[in-house]
């Protein structure tokens, strides 16, 4: 039995689909750089009706972040809270286990569900990152309407996604249900081909 156990390995959400290296246009620098965000801690937080103020206080104690308003994402380093619906947020931290105990910290104030294995996240950066995303979403990503600290729940090629902007490089991150990672990658690879796409190794 122990022999079989050694055959099981954790596998990154993008490993089967997105090969590291250059995709699409080969000439010149890559217009978009894609980094799989593996090993994140992700938790969905849904407030109990009427408990948002107390939840905000408990979250501030635990994560030192306020509950973001609709359409907003707040980060402190690599730890963040991202609005994802009325009374709903996605908590994100850089390493698996970083958010352990969050549910206990907000007992009776919110329902907390671990999404670390449920969502797959990519980071997109580079001069053409916005142009690539604009091919897929019907949300205005121009800096006059969207920027660092903004998020949108929407769809790309009929795939439900949540995206948020980290900085005005611009750097974006896009989260998708893990079972749709292959579908999203097949869209992204095509959409980014004209700009040249550098896929980094997971990290």
């Amino acid at each position: 039995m122990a022999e079989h156990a050694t055959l099981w390995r954790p596998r990154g959400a993008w490993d089967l689909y997105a090969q590291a290296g250059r995709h699409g246009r080969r000439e010149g620098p890559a217009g978009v750089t894609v980094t799989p965000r593996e090993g994140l801690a992700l938790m969905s937080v849904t407030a109990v009706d009427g408990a948002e103020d107390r939840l905000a206080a408990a979250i501030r104690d635990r994560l030192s972040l306020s509950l973001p308003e609709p359409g907003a994402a707040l980060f402190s380093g690599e730890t963040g809270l991202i609005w994802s619906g009325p009374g709903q947020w996605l908590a994100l931290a850089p390493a698996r286990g970083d958010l352990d105990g969050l549910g206990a910290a907000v007992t009776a104030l919110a329902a907390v569900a671990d999404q670390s294995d449920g969502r797959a996240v990519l980071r997109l950066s580079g001069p053409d990152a916005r142009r690539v995303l604009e091919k897929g979403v019907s949300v205005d990503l121009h800096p006059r309407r969207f920027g660092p600290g903004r998020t949108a729940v929407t769809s790309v090629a009929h795939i439900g996604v949540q995206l948020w902007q980290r900085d005005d490089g611009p750097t974006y991150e896009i989260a998708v249900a893990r079972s749709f990672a292959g579908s999203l990658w097949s869209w992204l690879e095509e959409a980014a081909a004209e700009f040249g796409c550098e896929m980094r190794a997971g990290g």
Partner: protein
Amino acid sequence: MRIRCPYCGERDNGEFSYLGDAAPVRPDGMEASAEAMHDYVYLRDNRAGEIRELWYHGAGCRAWLVVTRDTRTHAIGEVAPARDIAKARAVTPAGSASHA
């Protein structure tokens, strides 16, 4: 056609699903007459003009919305979260709950 979601901002109508007239309120099933239930389930006005109707932002924030739309022009007016309207309806002016 675009709908200005009160949570997400202006979005393509493809992100939404349509339910219909927001006015009918389900009668108390145990007390209501057959006529009242029939009216609630089947009978709808087909107005030319402004109508308040329920839309679901399924590809976005997953909130139910009450959208005011002009059926002649498809012009979208006020858009409000359905939960706010339901909560306001559940409380009578005297402040006591009238619906479970």
